[in-house]
């Protein structure tokens, strides 16, 4: 996973720089609203929104709308619109466990949940990177129309995971799909941040 961030750091800044932010944010290309913790850094790319308080090597929240027909990197399985949340969770678990850069993968919890009114799943797991650093992830996901939405929180298991778990819950609770909100009542959208 660490290598993803090396790629971010090397290539992404040229087109979408990290910016310090906070407050309600509408990610227009991704069709969702979310409330970003004050003082966190944000990177909104064409594939995901990434936010972090202490830097992505220590902790991050990643929110993504993924076309259901987009192939995965490690498994050849694909989503389909008729999948149950448990089946979608299984595809995600298979994608992660087929990635040999994820070591000592261990599922702590895999259960159904509701995300902004949508039936979805919540998978909690730990894994180690090559340096032996143990990371913990909470992965929420659901299928809606042609997209698979996922909101995940990953942090170094020791200290950082617990430190920001409440912050993540607030981010998760604030998550809304633009199409669900219609005219978006009750959500203030920062015009400066919409510039992206």
């Amino acid at each position, binding site marked *: 996973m660490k*290598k993803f961030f090396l790629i971010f750091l090397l290539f992404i800044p040229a087109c979408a720089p990290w910016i310090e932010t906070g407050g309600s944010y509408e990610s227009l290309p991704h069709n969702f609203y979310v409330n970003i913790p004050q003082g966190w850094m944000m990177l909104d790319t064409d594939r995901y929104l990434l936010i972090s308080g202490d830097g992505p090597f220590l902790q991050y929240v990643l929110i993504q709308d993924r076309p259901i027909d987009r192939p*995965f990197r490690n498994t050849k399985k694909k989503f389909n619109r*008729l999948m149950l949340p448990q089946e979608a969770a299984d595809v995600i678990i*298979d994608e992660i466990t087929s990635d040999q850069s994820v070591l000592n993968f261990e599922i702590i919890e895999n259960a159904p949940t509701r995300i902004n009114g949508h039936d979805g799943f919540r998978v909690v797991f730990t894994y180690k990177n*090559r340096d*032996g650093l143990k990371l913990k992830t909470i992965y929420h996901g659901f299928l809606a129309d042609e997209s698979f939405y996922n909101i995940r929180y990953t942090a170094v298991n020791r200290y950082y995971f617990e430190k920001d778990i409440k912050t993540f819950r607030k981010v998760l609770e604030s998550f809304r799909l633009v199409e669900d909100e219609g005219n978006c009542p009750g959500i203030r959208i920062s015009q400066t941040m919409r510039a992206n």
Partner: protein
Amino acid sequence: MRYILLILMLCFAAACSTPAKLPLATDNAGVDDEKRLWQRSEDEQKVLTQSGLIYRDDQLDDYLNQVARKLQPPEILEHIPFKIMVIKSPYLNAFAFPNGVIYIHTGILARMDNEAQLAALLGHEMTHCTHRHALKTLRHFKSKSDFLVGVQGSLIQFSGIGNLVNQLGALGSKAAVSGYRRDLETEADLVGLQLMAKAGYDPNEALRLFEHLKRELEEENIQEPFFFGCHPRLQERVENCKNFLKTRYQKEETGIKNTGVFLTKMHKVILDNAWLDLKAGRFHSAQRGAEKYLKIEPNDAGVYYLLGEVFRQRAKADDMHKAKAYYEKAISLDPFYPDPHKAIGLIYYKDGEKTLAKKSFGQCLSLSPHRADKAYIVGYLKKCNQ
């Protein structure tokens, strides 16, 4: 081109009249860069050992190491303490570290037919160690950066293995995983063939393994490294092997195969690897693995459940009927097996057959009340009651 290759092979064959000889020095790890290479190998092996990727089966390890020991004379085994280990990975690969630790992926083990084919693979990988191919590769590149560019360039085209390689260190051992230079791989092929023949194995099985795996790569359109190299070079190497067998072993067509012993030792790997293939979304490979296992263990409920999962997850036209038939067979063999009950429940549930779904989910939970996915099943049952 074919003639040049043939001449090259004959040169190698001549040079390899004593195939097991250590070519650079008699004392291993005797030079500074080789010592570093061995040290680095040990560091990387520690990472692998603690990674959760190692397939743990003591009996299987014993068997693989016994076969390996048959291939080398005692004086070589004194210098290089060969150790064979298995990695949980459905990809068709194997690699050797310079210090004699050889890793074989479950994917390639599961596709072999007999012990002679295993000996062919081991002979090839052991030759990389005895002939110090990692050290030669390291010395071939003038600087570390040149070496890395060369190795990583060859990795870009591969999926699956690239991630594993990135887990390993930057020096010579990377080549061990991703493949060596063409001349070194050819040497490993030819010396490997000699080793297996000398140990009494049928060398024609090396060719059968080659062709068998090549056919699978083509049928499945698999883009991944292969222990004999990447796909474009396969045909060339099949030809090398054919020519070599023709010139050296024409009259020695028989030899040990040990098919029965091999399949008995390998049956669990075949099943476990079929599950790995399923996780990787390689439905056809998973089905083939399951069917191979069925020939060894025809009354195992678990393999029928696996076949059901292959079809349910693939979800093509008529797949659900096939899946249900396999689940029912699994239940008939083992009525106390909860997973096929749940899987049948899922099929009914998605078809809107709530009464039947409820019955299947109920049976699953009564057989396994504390299962990890209980929350999902309770949710399905609630919806069935609505």
